[in-house]
């Protein structure tokens, strides 16, 4: 910093240099990454024409086909509900392990944190591929993929809610001679209930969207006919499916928003 009293700067000389080279390095990485992609600009030029062409073949949507997708749509909803329910059952113990104030010891805490990060870091499509290999194609693989993928998210948010509880009532119930499990049931669970319902419905909403694409790798739901119709170039049927997915997602989002508002 300058010694004079009338000048002041946010950063000193060394910090300014570091910031300059940091910015420069960022730009270099950006340019290098762009070049490494070897983008074919020719496709970009023809894109508007292709888009118009695709739209022309899609429109009008095949209304008669909509009856055939009722089954897969219901399967999608079932996968999302069952997957979320299973995820919650598995996430609750993980949440108590991964919350610093309820974890029994350090290794258990680290195990909880590990399960949370690991299940979250693998994409739902990859989980679906794994379970399709193990259980064969179908809704079971989808339910398992959705549930395993959801453990981390659900457990992490519930664990945060557990860490934010008011310790006062925990202490009071402990002082009355209650066991740690009684304290859990009587003080911690009521306190995390709103967060729990909000997390569960939010995750269900996310899982509805995830359930629409896992059919691409054979894990059931509306994604299965979608991929089939794309492969057969039945674009009018594809549009019907896309519209139905949009409707489903909007409805699930509305339900989840309503429920979350209700428990606050």
């Amino acid at each position: 910093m300058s010694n004079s009293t009338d000048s002041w700067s946010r950063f000193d000389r060394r910090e300014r240099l570091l910031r300059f080279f940091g910015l420069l390095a960022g730009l270099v990485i950006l340019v290098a990454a762009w070049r490494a992609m070897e983008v074919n600009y020719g496709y970009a030029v023809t894109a508007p024409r292709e888009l118009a062409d695709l739209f022309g073949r899609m429109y009008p949507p095949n209304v008669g086909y909509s009856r055939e997708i009722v089954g897969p749509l219901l399967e999608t909803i079932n996968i999302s509900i069952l997957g979320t329910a299973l995820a919650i059952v598995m996430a609750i113990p993980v949440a108590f392990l991964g919350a610093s104030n309820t974890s029994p010891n350090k290794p258990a805490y680290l195990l909880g944190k590990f399960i949370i990060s690991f299940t979250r870091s693998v994409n739902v499509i990859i989980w679906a591929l794994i379970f399709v290999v193990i259980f064969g194609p179908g809704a079971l693989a989808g339910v398992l993929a959705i549930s395993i993928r959801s453990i981390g998210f659900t457990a992490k948010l519930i664990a945060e809610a557990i860490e934010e509880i008011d310790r006062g009532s925990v202490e009071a119930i402990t002082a009355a001679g209650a066991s740690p499990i009684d304290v859990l049931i009587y003080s911690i669970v009521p306190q995390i209930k709103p967060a729990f319902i909000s997390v569960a419905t939010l995750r269900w909403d996310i899982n509805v969207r995830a359930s629409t694409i896992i059919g691409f790798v054979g894990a059931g739901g509306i994604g299965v006919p979608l991929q089939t119709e794309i492969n057969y170039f039945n674009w009018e049927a594809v549009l019907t499916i896309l519209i139905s997915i949009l409707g489903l997602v909007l409805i699930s989002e509305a339900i989840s928003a309503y429920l979350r508002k209700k428990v606050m």
Partner: protein
Amino acid sequence: MLTVDNLEKTYDSGDKALKGVSFEVSGNEIVAIIGPSGAGKSTLVRSINRLTEPTGGRVSLDDTEVTGLDKSALRDVRRDMGMIFQEFNLVERLTVMENILSGRLGYLSTWNAFRRNFPPEDIKRAREILSRVNLEGVENNRADELSGGQRQRVGIARAVIQRPKILLADEPTSALDPDTSREVMSLLTDIAHEDDIPIIINIHEVDLAVDYADRIIGLSDGEIVFNGPPDDLDQAARDEIYRGGESIADREEPSAGSSTGSDDVIAERGD
């Protein structure tokens, strides 16, 4: 009878909160523990039921030595000690009835606790206590709908339903206005007399202590510097508790009904 013998607590930070405190409480005596902030009042009360784990000395309730019990035996002896807190420490999202009944959790199996399945005699007693603490009609309200005074009465009811052998109150009036504080103090004295149990009240309002307690214990810097009836708490004793014996001839005397503000000024010296 509660016996505290040479109780010590040194926190991990190295702070010596209690430096060998000894006293006895029995009958239906109301004992007020007074002293400046940081004197160790709260640590003392919380060390009795081991919410804070003492680092030395002994606490005994009747023939049971509380210090040295394993977790399960500690839970059993905690059922005999009711505790009342400064911030009430209710489960805000549960009803008044559930909060009161939670005082019986030490006697309930986990499965029955899960199903909120309390025995009929507990429910009957909860209703009796509700009228005793003047809370009829609000049993199905959620705790967070009540006023501060009502919440503290729920806190008292939760402690009383335990059928404790002693009540511990940690600053029960600090979060309340002066009138409500007096209501709570007279409720506590009534309970001591009717149920014939002693109460240890940690309190910083000296005038409340003088008005309601049978005996006053003055704590200063982790040591008992006064132990006697309120009538003996003269100016010299107050100086000893709050100013380490230094006279305050040229300072304003904290008269009865003094604001907490002047207590805070005094408290700074005690820290």
